[in-house]
């Protein structure tokens, strides 16, 4: 009796969930005639269905380990979302597989030589192409650029970041093809950061007018109108996204019909899906799986995207006196065998680096005078002795003149490779008499703010490790600016490292320097200074890894706009 009751109840619930599930949009919503299902054999299509319509569509499947939180370019900074923008959106200029910018929506990239940048660097003028249209056929004009700027700056919209648009005083659209950007002072990092995603005014303006904000617009999660080679067809939360080709794409119709993103949050499951052929592309794969993919005939791409894994050194007053001593920092730099880390933990897929700027522009911003830190434990020990640290009690850990042991705190996130590096570093630093106390936290705790008591923000850790970048592909960063030091008065500051007046002046100078050669010279000074004083210690260059079905042709990846040529991709067979 009881069992019957439960079975009846559960049967009702199953039927309910089947109904609910089948109520969600089907994967092939429109025409059964164009895309027959496997349950409908190819011999059976209706007689009136043309043969080419009955052919199976070309679908490339991505195994995507993180589901985008939004497809609105200004409501997300997730890498897994931003990377997709070249599918359904368009930037004013995009980047090729050498990370070099090329014009996309504009006739040419502004420069002083072509008159696009004024001599004082305060005005930048864009001239738009005359053939660019949204996927619904509406022309894409300067009004869309102006609208994008207005929406970003309106507080009612609560966008994720106003950078770099808050560096502007205004944007003007004097005619349909001209966009004028006005700055209060020169802004050298403009090219790498402006016009990453243009908003369709004709779609979002009515929403904004009605609701006073674009935050609740359907387009944010369902951008069925875009300007890339594909448009979003459907997005089922937690399951998949499907993009279909944009028939109005001005560069040409994409060769592959659909791009299907399968959300696979588990690394091992992603590997299995790629090996089983259930997915054609995957990224953020564990380095240890690369040989397996290569053995299975899949192609692995290594793409520099500006990221570098490194140790951020805390030289604020609350840090250990030892880490604030440059000789101790230099000793640490010589005590870690970074080449072994790259070879053993990362299977030689990457290499040690000296500065945060190594992966940018082929290292053009890195001073040629830098002498890389060599693994040399004996020299490291000498440095420590010179600094006054000796092992006076014979326990293997050095003490300062007051008998305080040389203990440093190293913190990072819970990412596996970082914890492996922590273990190696702990062992190698112990060999020179430094006791490295290691700790790790979840990202949302580790990267919390000063008011949250996040360990890096409040200065509890002497060395902090993660992978970071400048405003790539631009070399600018504001991490070491003195006005970014966190405190009770400035709880949101994110200079967790310290204030160095000389360094601060150099960072301030480069941002307003519009002469590329002069700016490069400033960065040579910055990199040399930071390297020799070990204010940031590079562990390895952190490129993006892509695994691709070898049957795909024309595949190239950019480090900035990865899918910049996806409309040219095709299947060989």
């Amino acid at each position, binding site marked *: 009796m*009881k*069992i019957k009751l*439960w079975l009846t109840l*559960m049967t009702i*619930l*199953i039927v*309910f*969930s089947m109904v*609910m*599930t089948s109520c*969600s949009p089907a994967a*092939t919503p429109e025409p059964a005639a164009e895309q027959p*299902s*496997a*349950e409908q054999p190819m011999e059976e299509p209706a007689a009136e269905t043309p043969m080419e319509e009955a052919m199976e*569509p070309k679908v490339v*499947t991505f*195994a995507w380990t993180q589901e985008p*939180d939004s497809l609105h370019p200004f409501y997300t*900074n*997730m890498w897994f979302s*931003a990377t997709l923008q070249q599918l359904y959106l368009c930037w004013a200029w995009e980047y090729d597989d050498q990370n070099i910018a090329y014009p996309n929506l504009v006739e040419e990239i502004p420069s002083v030589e072509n008159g696009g940048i004024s001599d004082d660097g305060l005005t930048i003028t864009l001239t738009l192409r005359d053939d660019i249209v949204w996927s619904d056929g509406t022309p894409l004009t300067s009004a869309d650029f102006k609208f994008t700027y207005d929406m970003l700056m309106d*507080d009612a919209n*609560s966008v*994720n*970041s106003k950078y770099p648009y808050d560096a502007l005083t205004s944007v003007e659209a004097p005619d349909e093809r001209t966009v004028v950007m006005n700055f209060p002072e020169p802004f050298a990092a403009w090219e790498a950061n402006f016009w990453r995603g243009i908003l369709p005014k004709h779609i979002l303006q009515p929403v904004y007018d009605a609701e006073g904000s674009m935050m*609740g*617009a359907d387009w*944010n*999660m369902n951008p069925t109108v875009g300007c890339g080679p594909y448009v979003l067809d459907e997005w*089922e*939360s*937690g*399951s*998949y996204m499907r993009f279909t080709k944009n028939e109005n794409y001005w560069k040409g119709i994409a060769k592959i019909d659909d791009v*299907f993103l*399968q959300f*696979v*949050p*588990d690394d*091992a*499951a992603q590997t*299995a*899906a790629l090996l*089983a052929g*259930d997915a054609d592309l995957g990224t953020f794969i564990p380095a240890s799986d690369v040989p397996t993919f290569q053995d299975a005939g899949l192609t692995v791409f290594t793409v520099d995207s500006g990221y570098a894994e490194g140790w951020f050194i805390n030289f604020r007053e609350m840090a250990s006196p030892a880490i604030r001593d440059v000789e101790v920092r230099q000793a640490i730099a010589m005590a870690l065998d970074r080449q072994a880390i790259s070879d053993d933990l990362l299977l030689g897929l990457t290499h040690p680096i000296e500065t945060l700027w190594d992966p940018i522009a082929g290292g053009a911003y890195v001073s040629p005078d830098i002498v890389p830190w060599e693994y040399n434990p004996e020299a490291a020990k000498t440095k420590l002795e010179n600094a006054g640290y000796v092992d006076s009690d014979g326990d293997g850990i050095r003490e300062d003149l007051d008998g305080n042991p040389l203990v440093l705190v190293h913190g990072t996130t819970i990412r596996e490779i970082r914890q492996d590096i922590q273990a190696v570093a702990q062992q190698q630093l112990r060999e020179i008499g430094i006791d490295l106390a290691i700790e790790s936290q*979840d*990202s*949302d*705790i580790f*990267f*919390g*703010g000063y008011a*949250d008591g*996040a360990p890096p923000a409040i200065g509890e850790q002497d060395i902090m490790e993660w992978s*970071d970048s400048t405003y790539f592909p631009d070399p600018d960063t504001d*991490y070491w600016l003195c006005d970014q030091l966190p405190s009770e008065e400035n709880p*949101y*500051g*994110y200079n967790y490292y310290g204030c160095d007046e000389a360094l601060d002046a150099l960072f301030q100078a480069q941002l307003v320097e519009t002469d590329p050669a002069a700016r490069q010279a400033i960065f040579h000074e910055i990199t040399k200074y930071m390297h020799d004083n070990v204010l940031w210690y590079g562990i390895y260059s952190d490129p993006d890894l892509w695994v691709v079905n070898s049957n795909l042709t024309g595949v190239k990846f950019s480090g900035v706009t990865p899918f910049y040529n996806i409309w040219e991709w095709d299947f060989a067979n």
Partner: protein
Amino acid sequence: MTRYIIRRILQAIPLLFIISVLLFVLMINTGDPLSTMGGRRVTRPEDRERLSRQLGLDQPIYKQYLFWLIGNDWTKVDLDGDGTAETQGTRKGILRGDFGTSMVQRGKEVTDIILDRLPNTLLLMIPTEIIVIALSLAVGVYSALRQYSATDHIITGLSFIGYSMPIFFIALVSMYIFGVNFKAWGLPYLPTVGMFDPKVGKTTGQVIQHMILPIFSLTVITAAGYSRFVRSQMLEVISEDYIRTARAKGLPNRMVITGHALKNAALPLVTIVGLDVPLLLGGAVVTESIFAWPGMGRLFIDHLSRSDTPVVMGILMMISVAVILSQLITDIIYAWLDPRIRYS
């Protein structure tokens, strides 16, 4: 009985209030949703300060709870940071059915986010529960009736193996065997991840195919434990006097087992299944992650890891209500099934 039900429902109100306060305080202290909004870079200070104000995260915790509970449309908020609260709040609060909007999926209603996933979880978990119950009863009864036989020893051994294996191990091993290796060996194989093959579409056949491996993994783990429970209950019951009496009266063995022993042995299983109802709604985090099944478990983990308080609170409150209701229903069913039980 009616008075009992009303009393239990009234008791649930302060209980839910206390649960909500505790969960909210815990959630607020588990991380900062703004910390991961910068993507791979650390969130810019100017943006952190602005978003903190605009999303109401700069308010004291009691005020954040109050807004979550009763909304903020009765007061004004400061959006532009000039120190003056000039914009009318828009939130109604959960007491008026407004669970708010997600912080990471900006602007999307929490109820929509949950309702997107709930059917998928029920679709996976209900068949699993039915198979688990049926299998546990069959295996448990069979094993009990043949106590200490070779079959009983084999079933016992397999149960312990199944029970002691972590779910991720079973899930990955089954995926590699039936998905990757079977394909490599040219055998009929099962899909590895997702709910359907994108080249085919979301047909019933596709969804069922994709359900096989996750259901298999969940069943192995759960049925192993339940079957041990049924076996021990059954062993206890078949040694009772009334079973001996039934046999002495000449009832066929099948009638004795199904009509008398199983009915009584399975009674405690009702309690366990009742306790499983919240699990049905909460989903299976590991299994859903490995098989890329878009259910509630993954939703919960995804939003918890980004400290998305409105969504996490929505899920937790839904489960809390489900726990209270399922226990109430279980009690009522007990009283209905067993006339000796009275709640008055």
